[in-house]
């Protein structure tokens, strides 16, 4: 898909998450590990909620996890999503612990909480790659 054709919302990487999105472009799922207490956290934030350290290191996650919750969107919330519905938004509990919101690349007929999923990287523009998931 060319950059011009992609009309859906895109992230605007900032100082806290530039490394994450750069990792996605390399098809690596990175999560922040606190340099102070080694706690993993999601999403990318400027301070550890546990020990208050400001420094963190992105570490590579396996990309596997389970469905923590999901919702199937039937109504397009903005014109850009017209023609895309229905689609399924998921909260994935990664093997490493953090829970991240994403979407399924395709939803099987019978979906349930606890199903195993793995990351799929979609290069949606020349600059942005989105980590989505598929049921395995």
């Amino acid at each position, binding site marked *: 898909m060319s950059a011009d054709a992609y009309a859906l919302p895109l992230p605007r990487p900032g100082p806290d*998450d530039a490394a994450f999105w750069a990792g996605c472009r390399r098809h690596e799922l990175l999560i922040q590990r606190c340099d102070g207490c080694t706690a993993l956290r999601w*999403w990318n934030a400027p301070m550890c909620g546990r020990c208050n350290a400001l420094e963190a290191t992105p570490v590579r996650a396996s990309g596997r996890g389970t469905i923590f919750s999901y*919702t199937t969107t039937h*109504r397009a919330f903005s014109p850009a999503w017209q023609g895309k519905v229905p689609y399924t938004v998921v909260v994935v509990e990664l093997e490493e612990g953090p829970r991240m919101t994403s979407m399924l690349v395709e939803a099987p007929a019978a979906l349930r909480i606890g199903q195993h999923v793995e990351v799929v990287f979609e290069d949606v523009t020349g600059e942005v790659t989105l980590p989505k998931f598929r049921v395995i």
Partner: protein
Amino acid sequence: MSLKDTAIIAHAELKVMERSDRDVWQLGAEVLEQLLDRSGLEKREIDGLAMATSSTGAGNMFWPQATADMLGLELDYCDEVMMGGCSPVACVARAAAAINAGLCTTVLILYADTGVAEPNAHDRSYRREWTEPYGLMGPPGGFGLLTRSYEQRYGLDYALLGKLAVTQRNHALLNDMACEKLRKPITVADYLGSRMIAEPIRLLDCVMRADGAAGLILTSRKRAKEKGIARYVVPTGYAERVNYRAGEAFADPLESGHVVAGPRALKQAGIAIGDIASFHPYDDFLIAMVLQMEALGFCRPGEGMAYVRDTNFAYDGDLPLNTGGGQISAGQAACSSENLVEAVEQLMGEAGARQVRDTRNALVTGIGWINYGRNWGASAALVLEPGA
């Protein structure tokens, strides 16, 4: 001086509109005029202004000052409370604190918003980076995720959510101020058959955003008595909790700060949850009311469905619930203040065809925004009692 030393001496609300054809300040002026008529106050006696989060005012750094200027108010205290759906009750608490601290004596609490006709807000939060690229667009999606989690853990009977929808709709039918578009009877079958928005969230689970305005006058009880005001409503307990379990990466999304704010507010009021005579919870989605019933202690976690099944929530039932129709059946307007203003009206004994019998107290709650992957970001609870 404490919260209980203040008194709501007047309330006013305009009819909820699908889209306002009047300017937000015109609505504010109409509310102020009604409040002056009802309280008997002169405008110069109002020396404080507290306003709630407004979609129309959101772009203006000087919103309450500009509003005061438009309304011709000269003030000793001027404030804006930006806690989303917690703002209405939070305004009462902050206005009371300002009075008790000696900053001012009499506060206009103004809830005016024309967010449908003139939305000026923009969101700077996790959404742009972490949810919108995946199509999770705001509250219906967030509550879809919450509902699935609840269903998986405890089981969910959607017909019982429908019971809540029907009860509130019946109340809206009795409320002339509710949005006219919504004042049509519905059945549980209508609820179950309404189209999916963010499955399992249906259309009739959701609020419809609307335009409107409402307001209160808060002063000290001492001043209310000096003015010879016979009937007023006293805020007897208030608490809020923002970012419950902040910093915990793996918090339970079914737990909210109401587990903290509810008991604190009740303790301050000196009553137990079982003493609550009418319940006016923030309702953006039906499931939010069930979660609050559990968090506040009307029933235990996971027992919400049984509690809804066994309780009559009609205005003349066991526990009157959002007797004006709630936001879901009256329209989400006036900065989400409708449930609060309805509770005041009930305790004043002015609710007409939907008047509750037991006016010893009322419990009003707030929910402010939705944080990432958890529950709502702010939880508030306010206990009101009639004064004498």
